């Protein structure tokens, strides 16, 4: 199949970017979206042009490295999918496809489709851990946890930090990302102990990074490759309000 691409090209962080058109034919419908970009890049190399830069790593939907706006949607037209797990059978022959980087002030574009997601790392560094001493792994049955609780914590921990929630949010809010980590840790006995300090410092950091307010449009849950529930945002708000009321 043949596609008409319009791709965001930007030299570096401070330069002005723009949409450049490419025609790509010989695309197999079994290719992933990233493989289609590989195909285009190989042809660009043969022509001596600079390749389109984009982030990718595992290409099996579990690392969170890839991510771009495809036809105006985070990770493309499907819900609950990473860009690498989007295949060309989701597009029609002759279609025009717009490809842009995820946009938010907190996610500056580094080059083309590559963005700097360090803001997420800073949020995790501000409280997304427990301050227990490391060392030998303790006996796993010494702290009893109900199966449902571990599953619920794991559902929150499944976030891969791709940034689609921010990209699809009309306010560029990082509420889903931040709340998933808060929920994950507060559900478990090891994490519960520091929950008040954690939620306050993570929310403060989220603001410092320049993310917006959550308007509860719930678009993030739809686009999240891990289908992280927006109820975690409710949980973050609950933990935050509790900390506001009770923290000394």
């Amino acid at each position, binding site marked *: 199949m043949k596609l008409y691409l319009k791709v965001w090209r930007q030299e570096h962080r401070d330069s002005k970017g723009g949409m450049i058109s490419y025609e790509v034919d010989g695309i197999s419908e079994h290719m992933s979206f990233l493989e289609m970009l590989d195909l285009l890049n190989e042809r660009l190399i043969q022509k001596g042009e600079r390749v389109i830069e984009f982030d990718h790593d595992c290409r099996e939907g579990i690392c969170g490295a890839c991510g771009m706006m495809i036809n105006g*949607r985070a990770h493309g037209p499907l*819900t609950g999918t990473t860009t690498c797990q989007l295949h060309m059978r989701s597009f029609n022959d002759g279609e025009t496809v717009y490809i*842009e980087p995820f946009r938010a002030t907190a996610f500056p574009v580094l080059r083309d489709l590559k963005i700097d997601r360090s803001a997420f790392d800073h949020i995790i560094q501000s409280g997304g851990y427990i301050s227990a001493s490391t060392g030998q792994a303790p006996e796993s049955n010494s702290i009893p946890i109900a199966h449902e609780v571990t599953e619920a914590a794991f559902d929150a921990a499944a976030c891969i930090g791709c940034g689609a929630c921010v990209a699809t949010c*009309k306010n560029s809010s990082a509420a889903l990302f931040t709340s998933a980590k808060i929920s994950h840790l507060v559900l478990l006995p090891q994490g519960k102990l520091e929950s008040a300090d954690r939620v306050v410092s993570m929310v403060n950091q989220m603001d410092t990074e320049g*993310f*917006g307010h959550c308007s509860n449009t719930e678009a993030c849950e739809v686009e999240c490759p891990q289908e992280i529930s927006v109820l975690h945002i409710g949980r973050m708000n609950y933990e935050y*309000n509790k900390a506001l009321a009770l923290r000394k």
Partner: protein
Amino acid sequence: MKQTTLTYKLVMALTGLFLCFFLVIHLLGNLQLLLPESGAREQFNWYSHLLSGNILIKIISYVLYLSLIGHAIYALVINRKNTKANGEKYVYDKRSQVSSWNSRNMGILGTIILIFLIIHFKDYWYVYKFGHLPLDAKGNKDLYSIVISSFQQGWYIIIYELSFIALGFHLLHGFFSASRTLGLYHPKYSSLVRVFGWIYSLAITLGFMLIPIYIYFNLNVL
């Protein structure tokens, strides 16, 4: 305590919920307009007088004004921060496919409601408080006549009905959104609140929409 995105939303939620509560009282009071004209005039005027004279109601009315102003100002501040957080716009944007229209346009809906409120306050609140109204048989200011006569004009009713529709969509998202901001995360009660929000929004919207139409078609003889 530092002001954060979450404390800003808390203010929006609390003022919004207070306004939601006020709407119930306001609607219940206004339903007196649906009574037959003979009894309604004196009862409605008596009710209006009761509200304007009571010290408790006075305190609540100041909370109401503060809530309205606070809700609007915080909305502006939040909107500014969000615009800043968004940065460069998408060239091709289809994000609207994954969320509801009203949840994305609370600002527009709120602005419509604010413009409506300015008209509403000017025509009734201001006239009642500062204007010279004729008195009814019991000596209360005759607000009833003002209300009935204003709803004889078709264009006036259209302004009201359109504003109520905007209000309905605003409530539909606002009520549930406030519950989440306050921290309701239990899946069972979260969906219960959503259902309750639907019933609440429908009841308020249809209730308010009914009154001008009823007056127009049934109470045209003064």
